[in-house]
């Protein structure tokens, strides 16, 4: 039962990254690909009706994590206190930037929110990557399963760790590149004309950088977290997850780096899902490894709620998620096609 909920939480978080990832990515590239007001509005329109729903996957995934693994939620949220507070402020700034930019047509108003949309999106991409890096590297858990990390100490891994060290910054950089490509492919898929051309040109260099960074981060992860090579050695079928990530990259290349719009975007989806599931598989059954004292690690077993709670949870989660998926599909279908700025378009 713990394993089922581990998979559910991982799947919900992966869905969040795939969905909110493209609107974060669109925020990262919009200053570059969209030069004038009409172009910027097109980018905003491509994410405006869906960004809020995408973010709900974070809230719902967090809620499910809370009830299924309360020990993990409590320990990780209090231990990552400062970066989570910064994430909250960035989420607020980003939401305001998207929702308020068109409220007033003035040269002191719109560029301000455009810059906010870019800055908050870029920092969120790096912070989310850094968070994943922390979960893979592990944190200095005490015997109660608690810890507290400052934002940075000496940027070295393991010895007196901070949230930012060279490893977690590397993962943050990879996440930034990945979501930038994801957002570019979304913009290519949803727009036409000059914006699409500029976004399309970004894909190939990003793809090459991601390939190199993926190899580098994989090598680092293998040495930073010994559980990863151990898991892949013990259960070789797990190589299917990194293989999915590589297949995703291959699909993007085979689709002409964005020329086949939907296929390239789906390749990026596959790559992100493959990378996240690889990380989850690599540290399993830990959900937050301990640095120093492996016995203090938080696992799915020592953080899970009671068996009754987990069982009854499936009873409401399954119908609920079917409904939620239905709404999500319906909303995306109702805004399919390229965005236009005409009245009544989306």
């Amino acid at each position, binding site marked *: 039962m713990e394993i089922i909920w581990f998979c559910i939480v991982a799947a919900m978080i992966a869905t969040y990254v795939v969905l909110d990832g493209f609107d974060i990515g669109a925020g990262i590239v919009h200053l570059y690909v969209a030069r004038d007001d009409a172009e910027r509005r097109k980018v*905003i*329109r491509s994410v*405006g*009706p*869906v960004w*809020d*729903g995408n*973010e*709900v996957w974070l*809230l*719902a*995934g*967090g*809620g*499910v994590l*809370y*009830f*299924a693994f*309360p*020990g993990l*939620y*409590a*320990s*990780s*949220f*209090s231990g990552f*206190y*400062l970066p*989570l*507070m910064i994430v*909250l*402020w960035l*989420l*607020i700034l980003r939401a*305001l930037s*998207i*929702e308020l930019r*068109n409220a007033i047509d003035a040269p002191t108003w719109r560029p301000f929110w455009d810059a906010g949309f870019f800055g908050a999106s870029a920092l969120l991409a790096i912070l989310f990557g850094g968070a994943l890096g922390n979960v893979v590297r592990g944190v200095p858990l005490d015997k*109660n399963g608690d*810890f*507290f990390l400052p934002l940075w100490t000496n940027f070295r891994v393991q010895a007196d760790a901070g949230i930012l060290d060279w490893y977690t910054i590397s993962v943050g950089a990879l996440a930034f590149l990945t979501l930038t490509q994801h957002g570019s492919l979304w913009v290519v898929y949803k727009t036409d004309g000059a914006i699409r051309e500029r976004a399309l040109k970004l894909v190939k260099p990003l793809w090459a950088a991601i390939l190199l960074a993926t190899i580098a981060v994989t090598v680092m992860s293998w040495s930073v977290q010994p559980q990863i090579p151990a898991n892949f050695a013990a259960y070789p079928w797990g190589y299917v997850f990194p293989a999915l990530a590589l297949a995703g990259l291959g699909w993007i290349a085979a689709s002409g780096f964005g020329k086949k719009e939907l296929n390239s975007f789906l390749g990026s989806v596959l790559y992100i899902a493959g990378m996240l599931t690889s990380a989850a598989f690599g540290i399993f059954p830990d959900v937050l490894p301990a640095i120093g004292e492996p016995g203090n690690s938080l696992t799915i077993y020592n953080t899970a*709620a*009671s068996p*009754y*709670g987990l069982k009854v*949870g499936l*009873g*409401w*989660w399954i119908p*609920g*998620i079917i*409904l939620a998926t239905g709404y*999500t599909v*319906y*909303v995306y279908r*109702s805004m399919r096609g390229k965005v236009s*700025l005409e*009245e*009544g378009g*989306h």
Partner: protein
Amino acid sequence: MDTALAIHRFHFAFTVTYHYIFPPLTMGLALLMAILKTMYIRTGKEHYNDSAKFWAKIFAVNFAMGVVTGIPMEFQFGTNWSRFSKAAGGVIGHTLAMEGVYSFFLESSFLGLFLFGEKKLGKIGHWITSLCVFAGSWLSGFFIIATNAWMQHPVGYTRGPNGEIQLESFWALMLNPWTFWQYAHNMTAAVFLAAVVMASIGCFYLLNRRHEEYGRSFVRMGVITGFITSVLLLMPTGDGQGKMVARHQPVALAAMEGLFETRQGAPIAILGQPDIEKQRLDNPLTIPNMLSFITYRHWTAEVKGLDAFPRDQWPDNIPLLFYSFHIMVGLGTIFIAIMTIAAFLLWRGKLFHSRPMLWVLMLLLPFPYIATTAGWMTAELGRQPWLIYGLMRTADGSSPHVSSGNAMFSLLGFMGMYTVLSILFLFLCYRVIDKGPEQAGAAAHY
């Protein structure tokens, strides 16, 4: 008191009080907009549809504020209250996760369609989206109240081997009797607040002689809804909620009423200042025997005072609890009086010519917000010193490793950020109101 604990408490109190400025109007307007859309379907009058569109704009601004200030609430359970979350997450995690899965998806998916999809969806489709937005926001309220009700009156749990609190009965959690009255009272208050906002803006238009046709219909709808809900707030919902407190949190009731001594035929205090040191109510203005009657329907029933309980069970801020409760009840009484007069004038066809009454209704705007906040402060201060009533003290729930310095850093951050949000919110609402319903839906949102 430990400084870190004090900051964690103020951190949550500040962010949740600020957050709850927005959801009552969202939930109340969701109902009123669904009614307006239904009236449009039934009568075919564009007036109703334009009114719904105008309120949808106010709704959208409020909803966005509610979302961005609501996300920090879910996070804070983990960041600032980790011992509480570790112990109780297996129970209240259910209601919080269900809010995400059942109501946030519904709300976020259909709000976009409701705001921007009228042409695409057609008349009936658009009406259905208004019902979905209504259902989503009211479900959200239900799950949050169910969470709070469990903290007020924990049910359906057992203790695990390490003292963690485990869910024993899902249906006991969902059907907690406390939830029923608290939800009824809270949602009635939300509708009342929205009704007052609607009437108040209607009066603003009438007194400024602008958009007068809309002004009259806003006042009419606001006063009728406001009259009905102001009465429902007292009976049966407020009364039912009060009886729950009397039965399950008698020490909170004694503190709310400023009753220091156990008495038969206890009086009710209208005004006064609790003096904790001398254990008495200074300058009391009381009605004899009234507290016994409203609590037990018996003029001479015994009501337990604070002296009947050990001091470590007393709520830790009795004066603030006393004032919060009295502000809520006092305003509630004034609301009934004003709404009864307004409804009477409306019925006699004199309301729109009675400028003093229009002024009163216009200036009523902030008071339901104060009453709602005071009501929540009553509930939360009355629960002290417990985080989960009888099970976990507030002092035992905070995050052990988050220092006062780190907590103050984020507290100041939120205070700064929310100051900016307030300015933007007022500015954007004023713009919508100033433009008026006639141009509603003119400019594109994105």
